[in-house]
Each structure stands twice: as structure tokens, then as C-alpha cells.
């Protein structure tokens, strides 16, 4: 089995208020078949065997769908490979002797909880503000009563794939959450079911987004490039348009 030796510079921060710093770790004999998070597991087990605290990082599904994992690896959210999450990154992407810098998402709206773990609850609050269709359980009509054109359904699905990881915020030079907000707004605003609340939803989600302290979008497009689901900035244009239109509705 092929293995590599690498050097990590990992952001360590004991708690939200503590001062952080980079810690250097040598990770030797890492299998190239291991995933990036499995590499961190190995480092952590070795740390613990020496009685030290492991590096805290968020993770759960480890297959790129739950949106838990997220760290900036060598300057790129989710690492060097496009359109995947950190948990889908494998060590064969790296070479023997590589130095890898690992940092948490950095944004005022995402305070660090510990090491690489940040608090992304702001994204949930944007959804709570309006990212839904108000339909109480049991009040729905037959599912086929409203046909939805395949192109519309597909476009809505493209946007709906967002996993809420926050990489867009991490990558955006303005720490803007536009791509996340726009993805959800687009998903719902495109569908016929989403029309009645469309304008109100748009206004409320945007207001909440602003309130959470995210920056404004100046159309850099870094978010799309960092997004593991390749959500398109077209969704941002739609959200902008809907916010403008919502002023007249």
C-alpha cells in the first residue's frame, strides 16, 4: 500500500473566546487511499495515544451530503478538488512531503466553537425566516394536481442540492451568504407551490441574512467555485431580481 508523509499546520483554538494559533503536526505513513478526514482521524488517534487533545472538526455522513464537514485546506474551502466536500477528498490528491494548512471557515457570522468547528446556526435562521412553503400537514391536495414542467423541476432541483455547508461564505471575499440564501430562495421561488409566499419569503430571507452579519455580494463568483454542489451564481441574480420585484408586489 502506498503511503505518504505530510506536514499539517492546523488551526487550534480552545474555545470561542480563546486565542487561536497554528499547530504543526507531522503525519507520517498516511495511506493514499484514506480520505482527508480519515487522515485527521489517524492524526487524532496518535495525539490521544500521547495523552493530547484531538483536533476538533465537524463531520458526520462522510459521503458529501450532510454538510457537516468543512475546513479551508491550503486556502480552498473543502480543499483543492472542485465540487466535492472535505470528506470526499482523498489523500492521493497530495504528494509525499506536502505541507497542508488547515483552517476553519472564517467569517464574523460563523464564530469558532473549537479548532476547526464553527457555529453555522445563522444559516438555519435564514431558513426559519422564510425558507419554506407554509403548508400544514394534512392540508395538501393530490400531488399530481399541479403539474410542474420538467425544466422548472430540474432547475429547482439544481438549486435545492445545497447542503448548507457554508463553504460559499468561507470563500467569499465579502463573507456573503448570498449563494446559500439564493439557492434556497430559487428552489422555492421557481416552483408553482412557492408562488404565494414568493415576495414575502424573499424579503424576509434577505433581511435575516443581513441581520446575521454576512457581507454583501459583489459578484466575485468565488462561492460557486468553492461550492461542493456547484450551485450557480445564476441563483444570485434571481434572488436579486426577486428582491427588486418584491418591492412592487
Amino acid at each position: 500500500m502506498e503511503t505518504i508523509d505530510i506536514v499539517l499546520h492546523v488551526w487550534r483554538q480552545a474555545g470561542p473566546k480563546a486565542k487561536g494559533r497554528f499547530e504543526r503536526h507531522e503525519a507520517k505513513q498516511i495511506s493514499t487511499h484514506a480520505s482527508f478526514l480519515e487522515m485527521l482521524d489517524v492524526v487524532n488517534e496518535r495525539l490521544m495515544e500521547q495523552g493530547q487533545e484531538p483536533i476538533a472538526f465537524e463531520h458526520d455522513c462522510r459521503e458529501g451530503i450532510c454538510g457537516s464537514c468543512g475546513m479551508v485546506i491550503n486556502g480552498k474551502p473543502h480543499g483543492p478538488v472542485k465540487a466535492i466536500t472535505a470528506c470526499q477528498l482523498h489523500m492521493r490528491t497530495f504528494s509525499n512531503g506536502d505541507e497542508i494548512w488547515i483552517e476553519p471557515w472564517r467569517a464574523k457570522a460563523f464564530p469558532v466553537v473549537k479548532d476547526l468547528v464553527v457555529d453555522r446556526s445563522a444559516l438555519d435562521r435564514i431558513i426559519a425566516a422564510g425558507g419554506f412553503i407554509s403548508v400544514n400537514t394534512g392540508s395538501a391536495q393530490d400531488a399530481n394536481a399541479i403539474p410542474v414542467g420538467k425544466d422548472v423541476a430540474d432547475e429547482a432541483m439544481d438549486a435545492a442540492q445545497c447542503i448548507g455547508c457554508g463553504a460559499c461564505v468561507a470563500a467569499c471575499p465579502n463573507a456573503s451568504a448570498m449563494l446559500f440564501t439564493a439557492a434556497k430562495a430559487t428552489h422555492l421561488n421557481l416552483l408553482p407551490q412557492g408562488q404565494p409566499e414568493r415576495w414575502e419569503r424573499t424579503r424576509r430571507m434577505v433581511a435575516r441574512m443581513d441581520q446575521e452579519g454576512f457581507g454583501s455580494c459583489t459578484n466575485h463568483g468565488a462561492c460557486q467555485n468553492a461550492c461542493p454542489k456547484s450551485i450557480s451564481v445564476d441563483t444570485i441574480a434571481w434572488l436579486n431580481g426577486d428582491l427588486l420585484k418584491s418591492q412592487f408586489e
Partner: protein
Amino acid sequence: MPRVGKLYDSTIGKKIFMAATGAILWLFVIGHMIGNLKIFLGAEHFNAYAEFLRTVGEPLFPESGLLWIARIVLLVSVGVHMLAALQLTLLSWAARGTEKYRKQDQLAFSYASRTMRWGGVIILLFLIFHVLHLTLGTVHPSFEPGSPYHNVVAGFRVWPVSLFYILAMIPLGFHMYHGLWSACQTLDVNNKRIRDLRRPFSMAVALVVVAGNISIPLAVLAGFVH
């Protein structure tokens, strides 16, 4: 009006104002460039054009009336544009947080997008100089009110001034390139049919404006226009 105020309260709203004012400025810059290129047609043509700008609309409007309206629109646009830019910039800087990335790869689509803010400041400095130079003549070696042709030619013979004009056109080009594309995003000009044309079009216009404007000081320095 409450709606407008409300719209402006949100970040997207500020952007919409910026895009709208940016579009006005964008149109002005293009129109201004076309007008400026008349300098190649000779002094008479050029001066007549300047005169036309002053007298257009008469007698419905007093002399320079429309010009003043245009000036006010421009001034307000620049003001709103800058105010929004300033507010959003401060907001975004704050949003980035105090701890900076040790390593950060640039994932943005274009270099232009990252130079908007400082580019804007340079454009502002250019504008101030430019108005002092060719409109008010304060910093001009031999300003003659009513003779713009002379003012331009004499002004550009001072090579450091020409160089400054030429250099200033570079951030302007970037600003117009990303600006137009960005304004399309902000104003949801995102129709499937034109979506992919936005970038090349913005780029082409920016290049034309830069080339057109640069050609004037170059022509003066080269003695082509005298």
C-alpha cells in the same frame, strides 16, 4: 418612498442602487468617449460639439440648462454610487471577521472583481483631477474657457498628465468590465439566451472605452492631434 428606503436598507437594495447609478455612469462614460473622439475631426467640430452640449434644448431650457440637469444626475449618481460602495465595503470588511486566513486561494471569477473598490477610488481621484483640469482649468497650464480643443491638446502635451490619464484608464476598464457584468447579476439581467454573452460584451465595451480614451492623449503626444 418608504419602499425605496426599505429597499436601500438591505444589502441587495444598496447593490441595486449601485448598479442603477453605475449603469448611468457607464452610459455617460461611453457617450463622453464618443464625444471626445470627435477631437480627431478637428478643432471646429470638437468645439462645436461642446457648444452644442451647452445650448442643446434652447430655448426650452436656458443656456446650459440641460447640461446642468445632466451634471446633477451625474453628481447624484456618483454620490449614491459612492455612498453605497462605502457602506457595503465597510460591511463586508466587518463580515470577514478579525481573524484572517493564513492561506487563501483566489477563487473569484476574475481579477477585475477584486479591484472594484480601489479601482473606484482611483477613478474618483481621476475625476477630481479631470474636472479641475479640463472643466475648471484650475490645474491647466493655459486654460481657455470655451475652447475645449485647445484645452485638451495643450493639457495633454504635458506628458506626465497624459501618462496619468492613460494609467487611470486601466482601473476604469476593469471597473467597467466587472461593473457591467456585476450590474447584470444585480439587476437580474440573466435571461438564458443572453446569460453567456454578458461577459464577452462587458469585456468588449470596456476595451473599446479604454482604447478610445487612451487614443486621445497618445495622439496628442504623438503630434497627430495638434
